[in-house]
């Protein structure tokens, strides 16, 4: 070791002068068909990478990334769903022994054990064997973990109401509604506004916008309802008012 004594440096730097170039070993000195990273291997890697990139770009063009309606904290009926790689955890927390009182089990203990197990794997599995079949416990536990994650993910997609999910997140066109019109005044003084929204955009009940609902249907539904979700006799008032209301909704629903 020089440790700096008696060495000459480039200027006042710490780079030694004439340290002597140690040529890298020739690749033929390595066993088997070892090849140089640059350029031999990297060029091939880049070709594969380029193909991958083209495929990926095609995906981004063919499949637009999803965007739901702007966040609205008042819509408490929304059924939440995380991105797909958290679904297994989400599903785990639905089981009675991992939810409610036992939430700590599903949210902390099980994932915590998995994390600690993963971190300590080199110390839990200390034998010299590297082949999977020669260390059955480690391999078995990992396979079990993989199967559980896949199973939970699959379960969560089966039990999710995808139709409602698509409906609840839809971007609804914002339309200007004449809030001073007689029709709107009747609408907002009735119960309708609570379920169908201040701007007819929908709350518990569906939005009217863009649905092109005929006035006759509104009149009928306002009285008879649509069992079981839309109550009967939602409208309370005179026949004339009902007609004005129906025409207002029919007109607005064309927007």
């Amino acid at each position, binding site marked *: 070791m020089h440790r700096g004594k008696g060495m000459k440096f480039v200027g006042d730097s710490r780079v030694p002068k004439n340290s002597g170039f140690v040529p890298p070993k020739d690749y033929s000195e390595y066993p088997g068909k070892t090849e140089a990273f640059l350029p031999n291997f990297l060029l091939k890697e880049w070709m594969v*990478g380029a193909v*991958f990139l083209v495929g990926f770009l095609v995906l*981004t063009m063919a499949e637009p990334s999803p965007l739901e309606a702007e966040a609205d904290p008042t819509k408490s009926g929304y059924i939440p769903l995380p991105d797909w*790689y958290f679904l297994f955890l989400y599903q785990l927390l639905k089981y009675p022994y991992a939810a409610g009182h036992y939430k700590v089990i599903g949210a902390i203990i099980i994932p915590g054990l998995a994390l600690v197990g993963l971190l300590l794997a080199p110390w839990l599995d200390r034998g010299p064997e*590297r082949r999977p079949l020669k260390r059955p416990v480690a391999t078995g536990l990992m396979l079990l973990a993989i199967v559980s994650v896949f199973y939970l993910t699959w379960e969560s997609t089966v039990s999710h109401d995808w139709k409602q999910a698509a409906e609840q997140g839809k971007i609804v066109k914002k339309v200007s509604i004449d809030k001073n019109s007689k029709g709107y005044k009747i609408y907002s003084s009735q119960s309708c506004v609570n379920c169908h929204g201040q701007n007819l955009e929908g709350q518990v009940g569906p939005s009217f916008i863009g649905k092109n609902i005929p006035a006759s249907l509104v009149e009928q539904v306002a009285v008879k309802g649509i069992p079981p979700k839309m109550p009967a006799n939602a409208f309370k008032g005179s026949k004339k008012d009902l007609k004005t209301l129906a025409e207002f909704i029919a007109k607005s629903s064309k927007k």
Partner: protein
Amino acid sequence: MLAKLYDWIDERLDITPMWRDLADHEVPEHVNPAYHFSAFVYCFGGLTFFTIVIQILSGMFLVMYYVPDIDRAWDSVFYLQNKVAYGQIVRGMHHWGASVTIVMVFLHTLRVFFTGAYKKPRELNWIVGVLLFFVILGLGFTGYLLPWDMKALFATKVGLQIAASVPFIGGWIQTLLQGSDVVGAQTLARFFAIHVFFLPAVLLGLLAAHFIMIRRQGISGPL
């Protein structure tokens, strides 16, 4: 000409050791898919890195349009997605790239696990790897809120409730991430900062450690 330039730099900076570590090293036969097709499993680490580069680049372009403010976040994403030329591709690369990254880290972890590559002397690199995995999941969680659409808001509410259920420090974690009593303006600002500054900084540091260790130790031998 190039050789001369190299010598000129080398004399001043002694870059040969660095250059060897970066590019001029060997690729053993057992990890080279050109010789053994099944060796493609050794490419997952490199592919993960490739997708991370995609995430960083597309993310830098996203920030040119994105506004981390609850009034305008959604509108800015909507505008980028529907009005800006090639905006759909920029957002698509980051959105789908996130999923591809997760898949690749998962596969890479499995490759390392099933080839027993975490054993002595590579224990430290395995730990760095597990931390990388969690940083990536953290990036996924914080990024999901940023478009400020319905699924973002309600999924984050659930996620923060889960964080709050951690014994003793749960409430503290929730306050730290949420920033106020509700998931709102403060939360979005914090998630944005965590997603684009804190976690990427940690990610790059861990990646540097990961790669330095791989170069020091070389890839594990054939089974």
